[in-house]
């Protein structure tokens, strides 16, 4: 909320009114300020839900009408990494909720500890994503136009075959950077076929830890729209990743203010609002994980 401005001309009806140091001039009471902030953040969460609704619509349409690309595509995703990330985010949600509790009770040290834990979890989440992305980009599993994955090339020893000088720098939107200087592959490298039933039966029960060996032994046909699976994958998880980073920035801002001792039982709004935002980002991942990783 805006910093305190002591309005000279404005005097309140009932005599001198001790303003809380963080009460903005145009609010009557701290409760009114808290309520407006709360409604404001909930409205912002509504815009986030509608923002992701576009991607969930794209997912729903291509999943229900071209299921073969999801069945073929999800083999390249590592379930264990996904599950680990889910646990990390759930834990960060716990520590965030705990941080809000500490702020409400005025326990400054607990608040700082929880915020640091939440930041640490967010960091591990992004690091895990970095590995997932760099591995996929290295194999050429990128959005449709630059999709240049050659089945069978993912086993060790074929590294240089399509030696594209891809290096994934940073994890913000790795797909974006990587493609910008991806070498122009002849997109027609992957033979296309419409009948992918063999792939479906093939991969039914394979659960391996190593993604290279996992489900792609001997499968040489990929459906015509396979690139779209990875487009949707990168858009969904990339945008979610950007929101995680935005959350990390917000949490570090809250951390700085709590170290300065701003928050107490009367003024903990910002911690609550960042907490709500963080829980929504976790909520989106709760839906993302089964939709992308756990496909039959």
């Amino acid at each position, binding site marked *: 909320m805006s910093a305190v401005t002591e309005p000279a001309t404005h005097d309140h009806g009932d005599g001198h009114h001790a303003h809380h140091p963080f009460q903005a001039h145009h609010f009557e*009471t701290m409760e009114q300020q808290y309520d407006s902030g709360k409604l404001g953040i909930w409205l912002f969460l509504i815009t986030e839900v509608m923002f992701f609704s576009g991607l969930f619509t794209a997912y729903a349409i291509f999943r229900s009408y071209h299921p073969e690309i999801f069945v073929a595509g999800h083999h390249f995703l590592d379930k264990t990494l996904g599950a680990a990330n889910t646990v990390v985010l*759930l834990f960060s949600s716990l520590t965030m909720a*705990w941080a809000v509790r500490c702020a409400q009770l005025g326990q400054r040290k607990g608040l700082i500890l929880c915020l640091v834990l939440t930041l640490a979890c967010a960091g591990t989440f992004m690091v895990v994503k970095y590995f997932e992305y760099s591995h996929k980009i290295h194999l050429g599993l990128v959005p449709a136009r630059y999709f240049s994955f050659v089945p069978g090339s993912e086993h060790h020893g074929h590294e240089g075959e399509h030696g594209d000088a891809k290096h994934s720098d940073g994890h913000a939107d790795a797909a974006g950077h990587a493609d910008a200087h991806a070498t122009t592959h002849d997109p027609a490298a992957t033979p296309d076929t419409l009948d992918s039933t063999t792939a479906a039966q093939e991969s039914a029960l394979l659960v391996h830890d190593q993604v290279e060996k996992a489900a792609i032994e001997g499968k040489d046909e990929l459906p*015509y729209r396979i690139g779209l699976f990875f487009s949707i994958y990168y858009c969904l998880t990339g945008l979610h990743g950007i929101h995680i980073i935005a959350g990390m920035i917000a949490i570090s801002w809250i951390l700085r203010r709590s170290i300065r001792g701003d928050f107490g039982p009367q003024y903990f709004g910002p911690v609550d609002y960042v907490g709500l935002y963080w*829980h929504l980002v976790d909520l989106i991942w709760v839906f993302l994980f*089964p*939709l992308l990783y*756990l*496909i039959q």
Partner: protein
Amino acid sequence: MDTAPAADAHSAHDEHGHGEFHVHVMPIPVLLGVFVALLGLTALTVWSSTFPLGSWDVTLAMLIATVKALLICLFFMHMLHDKPLNVMAFLSSIIFMALFIGLALSDYGEYKPEVDAWDSSRSPQSTTAPAP
């Protein structure tokens, strides 16, 4: 968005001094309980994905995810003790998202045969669409 006039937003008078206001503080056992429940549900959904349920797997996964989402919303996001306006606002966004997905999904389904017809006719010699 609710159209019913919300109760008068705030009390006309405010108590003397800082205007104390009390917000529900979430007890630790509830926090930990919810966290354990979430972990359990995650394990459940991963475990259930190994069974070949055919088209049912999406519905089951979504059911579990919705339960997890409800847990997070009610407890971690204090929806249980929040003003009804905020809760109804958030639910309305879910309704509008469902509206968007539903109508777009049904429309694509209706004209999908025309897309399939074109797909099957896109045999190798017609190079209108290079295979990606």
